[in-house]
């Protein structure tokens, strides 16, 4: 044998790497080179900046939420409003940049995977804007719970493919997108939607989202004169969390808190709390914490939020966790829904169910830190897409989701709901 191969780039400690078919390696190398050049190219950066300002609506604002904060131990709570971005979530930051890169690489088609639909809608949007063909893979289970987003993508001109095999959720959509990419890599770029996958995706997607933390850090300093005590974000794949965490990693006094999906509780198997139960493994091209059985087969996961229903997590999160720089908790479906309702009723903001997990985490962190604390929460998306799920959860519609609200249900969901989040509950450490 000749000299030993040099290990792949893109490691965060033992995590990350490139565990993919050989056919994709040249495309990953091409992408890595293209994005490194682009990040040093004023023309690319100016074009992206203009899109952020004139299309996405950046900088996104911050909003202090005192009525909500009263339920979080009285700490000051500030939301970074990524929900106000065009298409309703942080996802557009990454997608605009990757679609610009697609054009620079001379490719004409993009594909994407989506769970909750936020990334799929963002990709379909950017593809329409830039004249790219677009195919979005989505687990069949998710197409059913996010039917409105499926319609949205189709209206934007994307083809939406419902993936029926496996658990028919996000991980299977990623498998299918990778299959498409292996087959069509010559003219197609895979717009991976989160900070996982083979190098350079975890690093690249983080860099396209780090604008969240850069803006938020300055905005909080301008508003309060100091850094927050804690930055809280939900973690599925982990892109919104890496986006807001990144600028604070060097600020040692700032706690970084990621909140995973505790689903129906971590005692059983209906959850996606990777850091609470999982061990390192390889899925979708990267080494990271992975929910797997004793043989290495991927376990099925559950969350009320399609966007958090994923068995692995971005490798940089695994690194931050193992080095102790970030801490990870989980919120159950019930805790997330209570936080969802609380923000709606106290502040007039309907959050995405993903972001509701971060809000549930903030409630607990606030109760731990007390009234002198300052907590920054990444409100990564808006809840319009989740209305069907929320309406069913709170009994505002019949189970088929078609019926008009019953008066009893409306009354039950009335003002007294705020007290429903008062009990200790909170998020498990």
């Amino acid at each position, binding site marked *: *044998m000749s000299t030993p191969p040099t*290990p792949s780039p893109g490691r965060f400690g033992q995590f990350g790497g490139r565990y993919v078919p050989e*056919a994709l390696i040249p495309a990953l190398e091409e992408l890595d080179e293209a994005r490194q050049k682009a990040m040093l190219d004023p023309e690319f950066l100016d074009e992206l900046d203009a899109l952020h300002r004139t299309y996405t609506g950046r900088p996104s604002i911050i909003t202090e939420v005192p009525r909500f904060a009263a339920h979080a131990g009285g700490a000051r709570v500030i939301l970074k409003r990524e929900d106000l971005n065009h298409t309703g979530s942080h996802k557009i930051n990454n997608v605009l940049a990757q679609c610009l890169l697609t054009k620079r690489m001379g490719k004409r088609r993009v594909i994407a995977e989506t769970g909750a639909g936020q990334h799929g809608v963002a990709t379909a949007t950017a593809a329409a804007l830039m004249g790219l063909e677009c195919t979005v893979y989505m687990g069949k289970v998710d197409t059913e719970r996010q039917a409105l987003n499926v319609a949205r993508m189709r209206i934007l001109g994307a083809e939406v493919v419902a993936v029926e095999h496996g658990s028919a959720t996000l991980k299977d959509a990623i498998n299918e997108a990778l299959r498409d990419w*292996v087959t*069509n890599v010559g003219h197609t770029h895979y717009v991976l939607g989160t900070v996982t996958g083979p190098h350079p995706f975890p690093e690249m997607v983080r860099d396209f989202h780090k604008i969240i933390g850069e803006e938020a850090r300055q905005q909080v300093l301008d508003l309060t004169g100091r850094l927050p005590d804690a930055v809280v974000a939900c973690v599925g794949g982990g892109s919104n969390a890496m986006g807001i965490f990144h600028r604070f990693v060097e600020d040692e006094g700032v706690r970084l808190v990621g909140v995973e999906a505790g689903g129906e509780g971590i005692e059983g198997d209906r959850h996606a709390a990777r850091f609470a139960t999982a061990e390192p493994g390889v899925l979708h091209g990267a080494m990271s914490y992975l929910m797997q059985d004793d043989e290495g087969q991927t376990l099925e996961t559950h969350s009320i939020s399609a966007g958090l229903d994923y068995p692995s997590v971005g490798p940089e999160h695994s690194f931050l966790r193992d080095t102790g720089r970030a801490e990870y908790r989980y919120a159950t479906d019930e805790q997330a829904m209570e936080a969802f309702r609380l923000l709606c009723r106290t502040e007039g903001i309907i959050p995405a169910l993903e972001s509701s997990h971060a809000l549930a985490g903030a409630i607990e962190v606030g109760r731990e830190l007390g009234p002198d604390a300052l907590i920054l929460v990444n409100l990564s998306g808006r809840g319009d897409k989740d209305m069907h799920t929320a309406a069913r959860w709170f009994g505002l519609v019949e189970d088929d989701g078609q019926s008009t609200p019953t008066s009893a249900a409306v009354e039950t969901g009335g003002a007294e709901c705020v007290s429903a989040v008062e009990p200790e509950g909170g998020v498990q450490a």
Partner: protein
Amino acid sequence: MTQSRGVGEVLAACRAEGRAALVGYLPVGYPDVPSSLRAMETLCDNGIDIVEVGMPYSDPLMDGAVIQRAATQALEGGVRVDDVFRATAAIRAKGVPPLVMSYWNLVLRRGVARYAADLAAAGGAGLITPDLVPEEAQDWIDASAAEGLDRVFLVAPSSTSERLAVVTGATRGFVYAASTMGVTGARTSVGDAAADLVARTREHTDLPVCVGLGVSTREQAAEIATYADGVIVGSALVACLEDPDVDAGLERLAALTRELAAGVREGRR
């Protein structure tokens, strides 16, 4: 290492006969574990030169519909990694070298050194790793060297000259050339990319080069045998076992194997 364990000896013998080798893939556990072992023995009895034992995996991103369906059924039927070693022992008992094809996390989870030792103890010739490239494979390179196992890495039409050098440098046994960009599954034409890839690969290595992905007929086998050292067939063999009558499926499998074995002999160089 015992020389008889590896696939090199078989490929050299085929080369001496002036023909390509026939390599057949079947997943263990499909349609059930005992039947899958019978199916692999059927390959051995009907002219196969090397058997690939596929280990079903929950996320087989390199596989097309036929193999994925089989893998799903096998997993639902409770197939375990230990069954791979039962299969390799059964194939070795037939005098045919067995290579395991496994997605990497299943090896990682068991422990790379332990997996290699178990595979060697069960008569395995080595491992094909569809989602492991040499840069990530140092543990496997060390463990396979320690146990005298072959390690088959893949090259693809997209592989650059630099990549071909890296991959062939780390490979032992044979180089697996993916005939087309894409996943497993029978295709009507294998296309020109495969011949070009084999030629480009040979610029970097003297190792045998076997071609897979998309091969399903005697004619395709004969065509590939004119330029490759081996012809790898998977989905077309697996599809034979979709017959609800296991014995009928095995008969179809035997017939197709004989056809393909004739095909690699028709492509004599």
